[in-house]
């Protein structure tokens, strides 16, 4: 075992010392020193299991995964937060899944629509109210292409039959009504919500869309939620390659696009964690191959473009080389401008989905090093994809707590941290440069060629803001 690994392991043990015995034992399984070779048995973290009560996990719930991530961005569906008032309020347009459309008329993305359960709904059940609500919505929003029922905790506990309501109303209204059993107590994190949402896409909309004609270049862009326009920046590149993007899942998605991805020749998946399920389904049922790619930072983008092109004919392969040639000077000039300002800076990441590994290459393009990375709700397959991309002895964290993040920051002294809104302001207080890596801190896009320039600019303003130097009065 190398010194780098040993040193990190020692540091982890010190951090764990503060926990009560039982919790310490549990948390020890979720923190590890990275071994890129995969040889070291104790360097693999345990994941996708319950958080310990009382430790201040950063994780959310199944509803957050199903409504907030997967179904919420589908723009021409009305998404009902079914249950008490809070869940829909707190997740109201917080993920910035950009879309085109006239909100409240033919699209509904920035709206918060809820059955606002009262005590009587808990006692007598919410099905009757839900049935009436769906009819009221269709009257007020005649252009809605679908209705999603996203269940909150009480719905599952009181034994409501939302599937029956969905079936009945779908028949009466002639549009898909999708019951999603994403009650917050199910599973251990957002992750199960993604899976449940994928299953409902499979059962209620996939294969039911209309598409006039097929071409050999049809692809679906899966697992891109168009945060700050990410999917649009990615789509632009795919179209320049000569591919035809027939569906965008689920950023700026329409119900029709949700229904035609099974006609793609290849499914391109960016966020593996949240949508691998449906890709596997389409592979098994329709024989559609799927390819994981990474559109963060030029190194990974060039690799990904070539990887995607390898599924197509020479025309696409040539186009791939052409667009690399076209955009490389632009990428080089971004690097030339920002790298001197960021070279050698250390980054700590604690995020969700694809970012703990997918953004590493983009940081490295700018000369930065990711010294610690972790997932809120990753699974074993996420970590397996991460180990080779991180240096030996880097810290790998699964379901980290506020306490651990603070301690690792003290000891690793990163030059910047990328995490979420709950973490952001404690880092501001610590005087550690911080960037939200869920919402891009209201910036973006970060995907694609257009996105990398924005990413580089944002990391520079984070690390090199003069405000950090004001915290301690200069003597």
């Amino acid at each position, binding site marked *: 075992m190398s010194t780098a690994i040993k040193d990190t392991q020692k540091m982890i043990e010190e951090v764990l010392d503060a926990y009560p015995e039982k919790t310490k034992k549990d948390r020890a399984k979720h923190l590890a020193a990275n071994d890129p070779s995969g040889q070291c048995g104790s360097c693999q973290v345990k994941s996708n299991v319950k958080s310990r009560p009382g430790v201040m996990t950063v994780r959310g719930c199944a509803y957050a995964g199903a409504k907030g991530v997967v179904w919420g961005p589908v723009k021409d569906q009305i998404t009902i937060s079914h249950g008490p008032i809070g869940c829909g309020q*707190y997740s109201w347009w917080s993920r910035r899944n950009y879309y085109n459309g006239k909100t409240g008329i033919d699209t509904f993305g920035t*709206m918060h629509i809820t059955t606002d359960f009262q005590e009587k709904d808990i006692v007598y059940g919410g099905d009757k109210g839900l049935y009436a609500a769906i009819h009221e919505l269709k009257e007020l929003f005649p252009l809605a292409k679908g209705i999603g029922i996203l269940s909150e905790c*009480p719905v599952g506990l009181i034994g409501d039959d939302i599937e029956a309501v969905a079936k009945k109303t779908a028949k009466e209204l002639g549009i898909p009504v999708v019951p999603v059993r994403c009650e917050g107590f199910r599973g251990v994190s957002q992750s199960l919500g993604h899976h449940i949402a994928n299953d409902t896409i499979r059962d209620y909309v996939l294969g039911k869309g209309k598409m006039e004609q097929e071409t050999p270049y049809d692809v679906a862009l899966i697992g891109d939620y168009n945060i700050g326009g990410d999917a649009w920046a990615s789509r632009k590149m795919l179209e320049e390659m000569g591919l035809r993007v027939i569906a965008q899942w689920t950023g700026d998605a329409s119900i029709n696009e949700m229904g035609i991805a099974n006609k793609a020749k290849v499914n391109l998946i960016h966020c593996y964690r949240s949508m691998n399920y449906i890709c596997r389904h389409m592979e098994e049922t329709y024989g559609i191959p799927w390819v994981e790619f990474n559109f963060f930072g030029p190194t990974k983008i060039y690799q990904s473009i070539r990887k995607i092109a390898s599924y197509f004919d020479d025309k696409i392969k040539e186009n791939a080389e052409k667009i690399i040639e076209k955009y490389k000077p632009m990428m080089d000039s971004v690097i030339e401008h920002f790298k001197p300002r960021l070279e050698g800076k250390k980054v700590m990441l604690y995020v969700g989905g694809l970012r703990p590994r997918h953004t590493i290459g983009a940081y490295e393009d700018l000369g930065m090093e990711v010294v610690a990375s972790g997932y809120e709700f990753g699974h074993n397959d996420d970590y397996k994809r991460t180990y080779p991309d991180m240096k030996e002895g880097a810290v790998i964290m699964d379901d980290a707590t506020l306490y651990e993040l603070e301690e690792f920051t003290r000891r690793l002294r990163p030059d910047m941290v990328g995490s979420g809104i709950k973490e952001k302001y404690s880092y501001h207080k*610590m005087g550690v440069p911080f960037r939200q890596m869920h919402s891009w801190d209201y910036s973006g896009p970060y995907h694609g060629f257009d996105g990398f*320039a924005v990413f580089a600019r944002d990391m520079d303003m984070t690390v090199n803001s003069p405000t950090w130097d004001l915290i301690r009065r200069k003597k």
Partner: protein
Amino acid sequence: MKIKDHNELFQQKEYIEQFERKKEFENCPSDEEVNKIAEWTKTEEYKELNFKRQHIKINPAKACQPLGAIFCASGFEGTMPFIQGAQGCVAYFRSHLSRHFKEPFAAISTSMTEDAAVFGGLHNMIEGLENAYTLYKPKMLAVSTTCMTEVIGDDLNAFIKQAREKGVIPEDLLVPFAHTPSFVGSYITGYDNMLKGILSKITSGKKAEQNDKINFIMGFNTYTGDYFELKRLMNMLGVKYTILADVSNIFDSPNTGEYKLYPGGTPLDDTIDSINSMATFALQKYSTQKTMEYIAKQWNHKTAVATPIGIKNTDSFFDDICSIAGRQIPKEIEDERGRAVDAMIDSHPYVHGKRFALVGDPDILIGLVSFLMEMGGIPVHIVCTIGDKKFEEDMNNLLNSSPFGVEGKVYIGKDMWHLRSLMFTEPVDLLIGNSYAKFLWGDTGTPLVRIGFPLFDRHHLHRYPIIGYQGVINLVNWIVNTILDEMDRKTMNTTSFDVIR
């Protein structure tokens, strides 16, 4: 290096063309159809249909009880809000508060999952208390609940007792609790329940000789500036005070390069002793009803409620305080009053006769409507999703008290989609509401003054007080300058683009 982000990128030709191409797969309605429906939603007919709905809320100004409970709990020294329930709720509460205040917010969840739903949350509670106490070393753990916990019926009192018996937390650790089901009331109810839970628990048996302090309860007040303002004013008056649930330093803590988990809050000794103060004064009514009822009954001292927003309300607030504390209003405060009135007189031509739509929480709405009418503004649509019958009655009495109130109509339990219909069928000049009201601004073109909660898309507004005479100056500033900005935008290419206004 010029870099274009989303603000500019997607206005570029190549992206506009991309969006057009994408439509092929969207199966979206035609522009004519969309425009036809869009126009229909502006009609009286649509308004009627919209107001007929009974079973669905669309863009409500409302959030759930536990948010108010943990907001309140955080306002005590060394206190960790502790939520017995599902973890996603707590992730949401923390995000929501951080987005508004741009501050860290710590809170514990017991991460209840399916097994807890079946067997109850006792084990989660015990392990949660042990972990939270060991790791985060709080002086008090203030327990509230989520809807999951309330549906399965966890017995908080018994659970906490068992945790003590098992020795996972010390016998003398303060662990007050409140049941805060999300399907009853809203965050103002949760605030009230938690405050009552804390006060009743920790002042129990502490009644001693009365002192000369006054307790202040701010209610679900998200203006940190108000807390600092109240302290400044009481210091000027020479009144000794305790603010119960003093969240000012929690949500506006100085940057020292060190992250403090417990950056402030009402000292616990002061909280315990608050039962012996000479009076308790609430600055909000609807968010403190149960607590004030409890104090009036149990603490055997004077209670009063007044929201000092606007001139008349602030006048009567000072009258009440001075009479309770036996003080005279000092000249400095009279001068502040004079300056605030002067500001209102100077700006009145731009506000007089302007028609307003308002959406927000009950206490703040009462204050704002009173203030607007003092300036000659005309409140027209007043939407309060979380308002009750009593609020409706109070608001109607207020409207009836002024000739500027005759057009005012109050809508309780209604939401911002109702308000959209109202604003199309009966347009107004100005809208007051939280950040989500910006969609009404976008739809109707009515300029928005951001007052309320949450305010996500503008920075620092919560640092400015809206109470007292200083608060009046801030309100005048926000309102009149929004009107003038809009006037400039509209007249930019005309002769009316005046330099002196």
